């Protein structure tokens, strides 16, 4: 009899448990819907999806496709960070360069890049190169904007005092600008990772010969929701892990001057 209030109290004190409960309830609803309501051609219950993960990974070509997609994501992310850093610093450090080029960058960023996806395929082919290029085109802008904002937010007094104490241009860059840029740099990396994921996955779904897009199309056309859901869960897990890594890095490195 006293179990109910006890559970209630635990739930009230630990929202995490309640959150877990919500997820479990949703999974149960999905299980019931898939088993008794929806046509098995279109939806399969989570238990079966979970059991099929092994079969998905065992499908001829799927592990290689996941490797390719991961490779595309990694290369696109690194390229975005490097290009974003170079453009962001060269634009942000000089006030004239910033004022003259920022509107152009914002204009390009505001463009719906998805419309030029077919062009990327034409220019870079249907292999990994087009996915990487499209991922970079999505990932580079948030990083540039974050770095420009970070450089801009440095208090002028810090620069003036560093210079009055005889710091060279390199010293100012190394000891004032870089440390101050770190929080916004990591914030930009997080947004960039979101963009890269979006770009690469869009391009993969659009056309793919060996990547995961090939298999999502195949499973969809064969009305095989079990394996489709399995593959999507694996990819979602991959995306969550990648996002979490950059988010942790942001929290860790963004802390020191948040006060």
């Amino acid at each position, binding site marked *: 009899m006293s179990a109910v209030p006890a559970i209630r109290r635990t739930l*009230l004190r630990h*929202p995490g448990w*309640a*959150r877990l409960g*919500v*997820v479990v309830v949703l999974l149960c609803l999905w299980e019931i819907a898939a088993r008794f309501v929806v046509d098995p051609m*279109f*939806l399969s219950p989570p238990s079966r999806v979970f059991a099929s993960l092994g079969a998905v990974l065992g499908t001829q070509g799927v592990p290689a496709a996941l490797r390719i997609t991961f490779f595309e994501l990694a290369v696109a992310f690194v390229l975005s960070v490097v290009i974003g850093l170079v453009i962001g610093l060269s634009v942000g450090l000089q006030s*004239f360069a910033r*004022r*003259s*080029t920022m*509107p*152009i960058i914002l204009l390009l960023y*505001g*463009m*719906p890049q*998805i*419309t*030029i*996806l*077919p*062009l990327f*395929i*034409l*220019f870079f082919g249907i292999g990994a190169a087009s996915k990487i290029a499209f991922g970079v085109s999505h990932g580079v802008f948030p990083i540039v904007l974050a770095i420009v904002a970070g450089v801009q937010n440095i208090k002028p007094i810090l620069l003036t005092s560093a210079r009055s104490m005889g710091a060279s241009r390199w010293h100012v860059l190394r000891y004032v600008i870089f440390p101050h840029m770190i929080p916004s740099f990591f914030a930009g990396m997080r947004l960039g990772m*979101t963009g890269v*994921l*979006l770009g690469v*996955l*869009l391009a993969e*779904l*659009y056309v793919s010969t060996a990547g995961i897009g090939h298999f*999502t*199309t195949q*499973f*969809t056309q064969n*009305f095989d*929701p079990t394996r*489709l*859901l399995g593959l*999507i869960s694996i*990819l*979602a897990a991959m*995306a*969550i892990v990648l*996002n979490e890594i950059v988010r942790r890095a942001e929290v860790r490195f963004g802390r020191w001057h948040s006060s």
Partner: protein
Amino acid sequence: MASRRDKRDKWASRAVQAGFLVALALAWYLATTRWGVSHLLLPNPLRVLQQLGDILRSGEFVGDLRITLTELAAAFAISATSGVTVGYLLSRSPYLVRVFEPLLAGVYAVPIILFLPLYVLFFGLGPASKIALGATISFFPIVLNTLAGFAHVERTFVAAARSMGASDYHLFRYVLLPAALPVILTGLRMGFTVALLSIIGSETIASLAGLGHRIVNLAESMEMPRMFAYIAFVVVIAALLNTIVSTIEARWTRER
């Protein structure tokens, strides 16, 4: 002195921007006429312009534009009503906020475009799958912003209004809503933008009609000038829609 220099700087940066655009157009023109870049990769800008004129004059774009805009309107209507309602209801209890906010934020971090094949399986290749995907993707920024807007209203304001005898309705109308509106409007704007992007995106990937579908069709039949013209058309439409939404957001936020 300073203001004159500022003005000169402003003109100079405008000149750099204009120069950049002119140089880009010139490079494009020279690349296609002089430098021998394949016409299949980069069509002559003059022909693109001509095709654009043809598209606008013949009214060929109307059908695709109507489909895309209908999908957008349906998706945004669904996500805006459900997002604002769910966000408001959850925000009424700090406990529910603590339970659901991380959950919603966690799902928001997953690229939902991944589920497109599933939506196509459920809803077919027609507009329904685009509406469903657009509504799902735009639901999250709207619900999260509504939640943040209502849940983080300054406690003192609520207590002050209560102590002065405000009813539930008065509290909502004069305290909660004005405080939360700017944040909610930002969420709605973000939701609108991502809904537009995801609808064009899903039309590009798998569809029967719509602007994204048209671009892919032209790309596959290698009609490059016309495809470029359509891309320009879509970019202008998207910019127009985004400007309208941002203007509405700015005006409502200011009037408060």
